[in-house]
């Protein structure tokens, strides 16, 4: 089976820590994925107006590229890319009229009928390795780290593309437990972080994100694990401003789940690029005596 990997824009720039830790972990686990040699921005959000087909061209073109290369599956990491690609794929699979228009519009490309399966990295891990095998490969378990999976919106909604049903956080919980962390559930794991509204609000004004931090802190959670660069920014990088505005009273550092995985697998910590996280994240790891520098 051939698995193509779609990185997306943010992972090549602001969220290198998400990508590099993920790829190093796959290597440590012996999984082969091939990064697409040509890809374009997925558009970050799936177009929701019924007559707007032009904005589906971006994600569909990536799916066409994957089909051309003979991929059975297309794996992504960024939650927003996952959502946009999976929804566009769903459209091409089920809406024959729109599919026809899109295929005819892209007459320079091969026709696409939704053949490639879009999956998230977490699904890939469960399908290709499994939590038991991951557990065996852990060399530096995250003992005593109280962490909660934070899914946000786009991993689970809408339900027909969700990586698992609403209210279930089985995949990331399974992974975090396998790497030795203590998983603490909380009631805001699928609450929105405010998403793109951050471009329209002064720093630290995002109540949706502050509410999530407060819920995590009161559940006794020390760290949040996410797979979305926008969640990571809204939750992880705004905490000083939230604190200054009195919106939160305790910090809850945010990590990409791939950084935690790579750490537990004993990957060189430099690959995790913790310097791209908020300083509080690094301080927490140091306080727990985890290795954050080579």
């Amino acid at each position: 089976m051939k698995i193509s990997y779609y990185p997306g824009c943010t992972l090549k720039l602001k969220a290198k820590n998400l990508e590099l830790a993920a790829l190093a972990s796959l290597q440590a686990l012996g999984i082969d994925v091939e990064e697409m040699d040509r890809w374009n921005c997925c558009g970050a959000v799936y177009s929701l107006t019924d007559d707007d087909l032009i904005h589906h061209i971006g994600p569909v073109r990536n799916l066409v590229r994957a089909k051309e290369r003979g991929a059975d599956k297309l794996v992504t990491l960024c939650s927003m890319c996952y959502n946009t690609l999976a929804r566009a794929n769903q459209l091409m699979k089920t809406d024959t009229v729109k599919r026809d228009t899109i295929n005819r519009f892209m007459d320079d490309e091969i026709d696409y009928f939704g053949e490639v399966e879009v999956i998230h990295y977490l699904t890939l891990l469960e399908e290709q390795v499994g939590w038991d095998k991951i557990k065996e490969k852990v060399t530096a378990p995250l003992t005593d780290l109280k962490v909660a999976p934070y899914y946000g919106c786009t991993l689970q909604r809408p339900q027909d593309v969700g990586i698992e049903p609403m209210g279930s956080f089985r995949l990331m919980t399974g992974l975090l437990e396998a790497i030795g962390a203590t998983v603490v559930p909380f009631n805001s794991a699928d609450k929105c972080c405010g998403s793109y509204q951050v471009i329209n609000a002064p720093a630290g004004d995002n109540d949706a994100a502050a509410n999530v931090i407060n819920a995590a802190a009161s559940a006794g959670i020390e760290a949040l694990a996410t797979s979305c660069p926008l969640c990571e920014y809204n939750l992880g990088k705004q905490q000083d401003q939230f604190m200054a505005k009195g919106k939160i009273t305790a910090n809850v550092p945010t990590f990409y789940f791939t950084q935690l995985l790579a750490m537990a697998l004993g990957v060189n910590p430099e690959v995790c690029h913790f310097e791209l996280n908020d300083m509080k994240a690094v301080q927490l790891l140091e306080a727990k005596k985890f290795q954050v520098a080579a």
Partner: protein
Amino acid sequence: MTLPINAQNVSIVSIEKINKLSGENVKLCMQCGTCTAACPMAEEMDFFPRKVMHLSQFGMLSLMNDINTYWKCASCHSCSVRCPRGIDIAKVMEALRQLVLRTSKNYIEPSQMPAEQISELPQIAMVAGFRKLTS
């Protein structure tokens, strides 16, 4: 606040426009308020999602011109997955945004964003935000 329902602000054409753009049928809404309860942005909205659904049922676009509800919507689909009538409210919000954006009006001006903010934001924040808030 009392909002009058009269011949000036009720518009069947507008109801049709909202339904056509969203692909939904706003008449199905039974005004239960589940969407408002599920909405993470509700506190910041001028009118709650339930009320916007009500105004949409009458096509009262003129009363929704100056409210921030659909601009504050984060397209999180928290309402859509819970609506007991199966309405994808996120799509109705998008339709309301598009009705304005398609008159070449921007809700935010990218050129006015502080350079410092632009250099800090992850790329997806800007791609997504510009797609939702600019024409």
